[in-house]
């Protein structure tokens, strides 16, 4: 046995963009120079006080950071166990944590002198965030979105168009997030000299998983300080567990990362259990070893849902933002290191948690975030009343009202 890993000294990825065996750069050669350029521009920017000051200013004056920490008293009472604290990314401008990364990358793009960005979107939240940042900074913006997702997230399509972005429907494959990423990458391959790919999750080729993690870590840094600070609404101590939903894994890595060295804090990621693991209709990459194995999808090596021949499997989740066949490489590595743990919530559990949060706290969460709440519903009663759980409420649920009405109508 190796000695326990010292997370105070955690410094991943390595110089090849690997998190242990995961990550890397599996892209057409055309993009390799752009990735090298991006890595170098990013490293210069993050070490430049001017860049950090500008990012900090926009986070305060435009995004509305820090987002509050809310003690969910009625939900805690209802569940009869641990005290539940919500990190309110739903209150960030444009309605989700996605703006943290979109704004950071958009500032980087401007610095790199490129005038055009392309992005993919599943639920539409990353597309809206990217369109928002593009409008703010005067960048041309094209968002690729699967036509299935366009149908189930119609309000967000309209939002993006209002914000001046061009939304291009993708009709290939399953017509969801994975196919939107393929098209965004194809656009990027074609226009790489003038265009930046503003990837929205902790996925894709190096350095994207690192860039996205770093820009999203503001969530965990703020939440950790707020938990320790009674004046900020926290219990005055670290939580016993941090819970976040995991699609590609950007909101989860953002809230987990600043807690890595806090050994007593459990870090729990919640994947989309869809219609149940046995049904095969889910997106629980860590829960189903039959379908989900080590592989390469869209530039990175990680767990990938696939058939025995290596063809990418179709996934299902009631939440478009979790409906993806692979998971961020750093999550796979942290899981191997024993630092993070992953579970799943089914569509039904997420919908139930969605309703609970609406009724007990007056907060309509995104269906993605409702998966994290669903895990809290299971976990909180098992912990004592003096325990504390921090939940990343990654987005608001306005975009999901049609879906929820339809799903509740079924029963």
């Amino acid at each position: 046995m190796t000695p326990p890993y010292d997370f105070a000294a955690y410094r991943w990825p390595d110089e090849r963009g690997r998190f242990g065996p995961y990550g890397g750069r599996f892209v057409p050669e055309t993009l390799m120079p752009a990735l090298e350029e991006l890595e170098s521009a990013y490293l210069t920017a993050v070490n430049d006080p001017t860049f950090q000051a500008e990012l900090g200013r926009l986070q305060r004056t435009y995004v509305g950071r820090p987002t509050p920490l809310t003690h969910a008293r009625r939900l805690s009472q209802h569940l009869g166990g641990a005290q539940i604290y919500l990190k309110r990314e739903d209150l960030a401008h444009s309605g989700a944590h996605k703006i943290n990364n979109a704004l950071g990358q958009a500032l980087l793009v401007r610095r790199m002198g490129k005038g055009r960005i392309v992005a993919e979107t599943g639920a539409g939240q990353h597309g809206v965030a990217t369109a928002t940042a593009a409008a703010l900074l005067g960048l041309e913006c094209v968002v690729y979105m699967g036509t299935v997702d366009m149908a189930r997230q119609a309000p967000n399509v309209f939002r993006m168009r209002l914000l001046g972005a061009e939304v291009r429907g993708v009709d290939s494959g399953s017509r969801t997030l994975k196919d939107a990423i393929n098209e965004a990458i194809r656009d990027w391959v074609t226009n790489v000299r003038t265009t930046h790919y503003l990837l929205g999750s902790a996925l894709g080729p190096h350095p994207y998983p690192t860039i996205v993690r770093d820009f999203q870590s503001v969530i965990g840094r703020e939440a950790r300080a707020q938990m320790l600070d009674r004046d900020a609404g926290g219990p005055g101590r670290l939580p016993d567990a941090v819970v976040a939903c995991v699609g590609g894994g950007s909101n989860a890595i953002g809230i987990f990362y600043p807690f890595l060295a806090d050994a007593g804090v459990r870090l729990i990621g919640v994947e989309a259990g869809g219609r149940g693991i046995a049904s095969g209709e889910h997106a629980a990459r860590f829960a189903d070893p039959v379908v989900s194995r080590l592989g390469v999808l869209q530039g990175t090596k990680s767990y990938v849902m696939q058939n025995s021949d290596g063809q990418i499997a179709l996934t299902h989740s009631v939440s478009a933002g979790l409906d993806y066949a692979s998971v961020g490489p750093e999550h796979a590595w942290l899981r191997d290191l024993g630092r993070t743990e992953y579970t799943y919530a089914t569509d039904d559990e997420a919908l139930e948690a969605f309703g609970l949060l609406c009724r007990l706290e007056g907060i309509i969460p995104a269906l993605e975030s409702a998966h994290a709440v669903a895990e809290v519903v299971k976990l909180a009663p098992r912990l004592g009343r003096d325990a504390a759980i921090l939940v990343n409420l990654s987005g608001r649920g306005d975009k999901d009202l049609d879906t929820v009405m339809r799903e509740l109508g079924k029963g």
Partner: protein
Amino acid sequence: MKPTGAERIRAAFARARAEGRAAFMPYQMLGHPTPEQSLRIVRSLALAGADLFELGVPFSDPLADGPVIQAAAQRALDNGMTVARCLEMVAELRAELPDPPFCLMGYVNPLLAYGLERFVADAVAAGADGLIVPDLPPDEPEADELIALCRRHGLAPVFLLAPTSTPGRIALALARSQGFVYLVSVTGITGARDALPADLAEFVARVRAEALRQSPADPLPLAVGFGISTPAQAAQVAALADGVIVGSALVKLAAAAEADPAAAVASLARSLAESAHRPSSACQAGASGEPAG
């Protein structure tokens, strides 16, 4: 001793060069439009004058490919194609066509799922000579592994270069490729273009200079693909490079043919082969390489 894939590929390029022409390398997706028809298409391309073949292994998410090859891959998968079935078809083709080198082109995930070592061994046993993996750059650790396996089993690893490739990356891809190196003509995905990019000659010359620097007596052949769809374009490329690769234009004809896809591709393939074999203008300085030996 049986020649390696790299030796057979080099021999095919050397033959073309000795005849004062570029090699014609058509692409065909295995299993498209049906498995049986894809075999017939390859036979028909051989008759049309193909010197080497690029044979596609379908993948559900081919991010270097444009709509034509994406659709062909999906159709092949819908026809039940698997990596194993592709290798069986390679063996069938090899039995009928002993001479032309076959380069397999497949994305990395299906190869990992099949097992890299098992894939390389089975591909060689089936009669494949080279392997192109468009989403595996030569600097990834998995490429080290693949190159070692290819050398052990006698399969030629072929890496790609793009107009955006830096001098360092050009040197790396040339050093790690065997048989030939694949130049992506355009900054973009596969698919027909109206015109070849203006900087193609300059790009080919840059790579040629490095190939000559690495191996003055016997530089690695350069084959150019992506975006070449017409005989005129094939002739232009043939004046610059050692090989002309045509994919989407042929796949599109096969996809659209209602009765006889092999016949549908034959006529274009013949014109492309003739054009590749008769470069459109005098070879530009430094563009055709030094004669071997």
